[in-house]
């Protein structure tokens, strides 16, 4: 009994203690992170061999430049000028003098080494936290020398992932429609390039009209639409082998074939009996299934990453708006309610957002909204732009933009542009010719 009282007393006895001061930091700067990408060290013998094979003077410098350009392009990093670096690449790779890197305000440092081993290219790299003086990551790759650009992209992906927490999107490719000639008589070819615009290749000759190429989310397959003898035909193309096959001929207006997340189906819209609805086709047994059934025009379907839902646009409310339905066509729900017309909805690979094109008061916008239609954000505005496609990490959108022609019909051009979710980092993607209808591949190296 007495102990109980004493216990209570002990609890209630006033204890003089300092309350821990807590400060909430809810704001910071959105400036890109200063990163130093040191040229990768290379020995004389390796330098000589790579010069002979790849015609590159300093492969270490070339790879580091790829990493630097990629990081800058992302808008999240600020690669520092190499001229300000105090430490030699070979020593920096072994043991960086963090004081030197701190002096130029670098917060992260990339170092590495390139060697020629048994006719192969071996690249090792390290990522350092300059402020804490710790190694954050160390990796090595061995590949054929001709893959040196990809090595640069893979290094960038690893650095990006380690510093941002999300997967990178640099070791990827973009398939698009290359356009040449006057506006009234355009020659359109299917083309593919690395995400930074290098290694451009044309996949078709331009004899037939090609439209809306879309990458498979699981592998390097592409589906696209082509008009053969004025009839729409859906094709499948294997990028690695170059093999092409016809999926099927479809009646009337057929639009935008797109893969399901598992890559087993193709979803598209086509007009049957004068009514445009959404259909899927199983790629194994070629069975076509009708998904939506409404007298209105339903087009541009896109699966959610889990394959449970489909977003599409329809004019069933009187105006073109965005809708979401279950993958079996049930539970149709309108999600866009803003002013203007909405089209080309594309579900983000992250699953959290839907990108779209909006037409309002004669201007085109590329925007995003949550999957329930809330939180609409317009990222960019222009005279004419459409067809957004997500980067594999769901952070950047690529789309195409056309310029106005003058009174004589001259000055028309179509170019690819990219913009990130902040809406600030808008950049033109360099292409050899005019370009439209881009589609971003998944990561080549998973």
């Amino acid at each position, binding site marked *: *009994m*007495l102990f109980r*009282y004493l216990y*209570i*007393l002990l609890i*209630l*006895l*006033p204890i003089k203690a*300092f*309350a*821990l*001061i*807590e*400060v*909430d*930091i*809810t*704001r*910071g*700067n*959105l*400036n*890109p*992170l200063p990163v130093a990408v040191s040229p990768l060290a290379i020995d004389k013998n390796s330098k000589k061999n790579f010069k002979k094979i790849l015609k590159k003077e300093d492969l270490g410098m070339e790879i580091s430049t790829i990493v630097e350009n990629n990081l800058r392009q992302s*808008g*999240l990093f600020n690669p520092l000028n190499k001229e300000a670096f105090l430490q030699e690449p070979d020593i920096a790779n072994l043991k960086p003098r963090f004081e030197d890197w701190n002096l130029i305000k670098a*917060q992260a440092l990339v170092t590495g080494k390139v060697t020629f081993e048994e006719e192969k290219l071996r690249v090792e790299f390290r990522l350092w*936290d300059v*402020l*804490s003086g710790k190694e954050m990551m160390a990796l090595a790759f061995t590949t054929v020398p001709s893959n040196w650009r990809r090595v640069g992209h893979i290094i960038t992906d690893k650095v*990006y*992932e380690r*510093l*941002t*927490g*999300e997967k990178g999107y640099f070791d990827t490719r973009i398939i698009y429609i290359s356009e040449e000639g006057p506006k009234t008589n355009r020659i359109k070819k299917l083309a593919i390039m690395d995400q930074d615009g290098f290694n451009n290749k044309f996949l078709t000759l331009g004899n037939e009209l090609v439209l809306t190429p879309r990458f498979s989310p699981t592998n390097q397959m592409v589906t696209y639409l082509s008009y053969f003898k004025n009839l729409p035909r859906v094709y499948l193309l294997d990028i690695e082998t170059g093999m092409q096959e016809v999926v099927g001929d479809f009646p009337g207006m057929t639009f935008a074939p797109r893969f399901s997340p598992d890559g087993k189906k193709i979803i598209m819209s086509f007009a049957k009996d004068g009514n445009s609805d959404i259909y899927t086709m199983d790629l194994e047994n070629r069975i076509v299934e009708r998904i939506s059934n409404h007298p209105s025009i339903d087009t541009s379907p896109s699966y959610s990453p889990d394959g449970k839902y489909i977003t599409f646009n329809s004019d069933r409310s009187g105006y073109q708006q965005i809708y979401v339905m279950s993958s079996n066509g049930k539970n149709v729900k309108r999600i866009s309610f803003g002013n203007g017309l909405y089209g080309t909805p594309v579900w983000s690979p*992250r699953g*959290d957002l839907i990108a779209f094109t909006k037409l309002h008061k004669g201007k085109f916008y590329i925007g995003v909204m949550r999957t329930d239609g809330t939180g609409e*954000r317009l990222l960019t505005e222009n005279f004419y732009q459409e067809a957004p496609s997500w980067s594999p*990490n769901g*952070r950047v959108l690529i789309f195409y933009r056309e310029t106005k022609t003058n009174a004589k019909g001259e000055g028309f051009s179509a170019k690819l542009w990219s913009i*990130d979710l*902040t809406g600030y980092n808008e950049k033109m993607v360099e292409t050899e010719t005019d370009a439209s209808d881009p589609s971003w591949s998944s990561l080549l190296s998973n």
Partner: protein
Amino acid sequence: MNRNIFISFGFHTLLIIITAMSLPFLAKKPIDLPPIVSVELIQITDKTKIPFAPKAKKIIEKVKEKEKKLVSEQAPPKKIKKQKPDAIPLPDEKIEKIKKIKDEKQNPKKIETEIKQISEFEKKELFDTNSIAALIDKSKTESAETKKKLDRVTQDQDKEMDFGGLTLSEEDALKAQIFGCWSIPLGLPFNEDLLVRIKLQLKPDGSIIRTEIIDHARMNRPGQAFYKVLAESALRAIKLCQPLRVPSTGYERWKDMQLNFDAREMLEG
């Protein structure tokens, strides 16, 4: 039975006394405090160092009184004839008038000369070494007394401050400093529970002795890459910012501090 009642009564009384003692705000009436205005206190005594001389003060006052008397004994000033409105003053006269007005205005330089005059007056009239020694002794004791008083006041203030957090201005200064150093990783999702709490141990000059991420285990858990990235960015910000802008007093109060990094507001836009 009775014994238990007595014990219970005794302990209850003790409890009430302890509660009353430990919770003084119950006994005291709430003080109607004016709004806090942050004031920077500067020790100007080091700059001026005017010795406190009560005897000299008395003499000065006496002299002032004498002067007053002298002024009152003087004849009243002559009345200046009013100028006719049609009498236009010459340019030279105008300048003289302006000069007079200027002289009438308070001029800091003039004040300085007045102070000097007093000290000279002291020198002339009070040049007695014994009295000066006495004055110095007295001033010493009096200054010591005032110093004691001042010390008591600051200690009391510190005691009160020990239990409080940072003032708004102190917190704002610290926040503003860290805002500048913290590069928020823009790739983080805004809809996830990403709050990084870091405990700091600080030196009196604001430099860091130790940092500790409270939920450190979460950093190495699978699927917590975003948390790890945010925690690392917060640590970078702290290191980049040090020495932190901490208050110049009350070290005991803030030597341990916790910073809660939350980027959701910024990422949500």
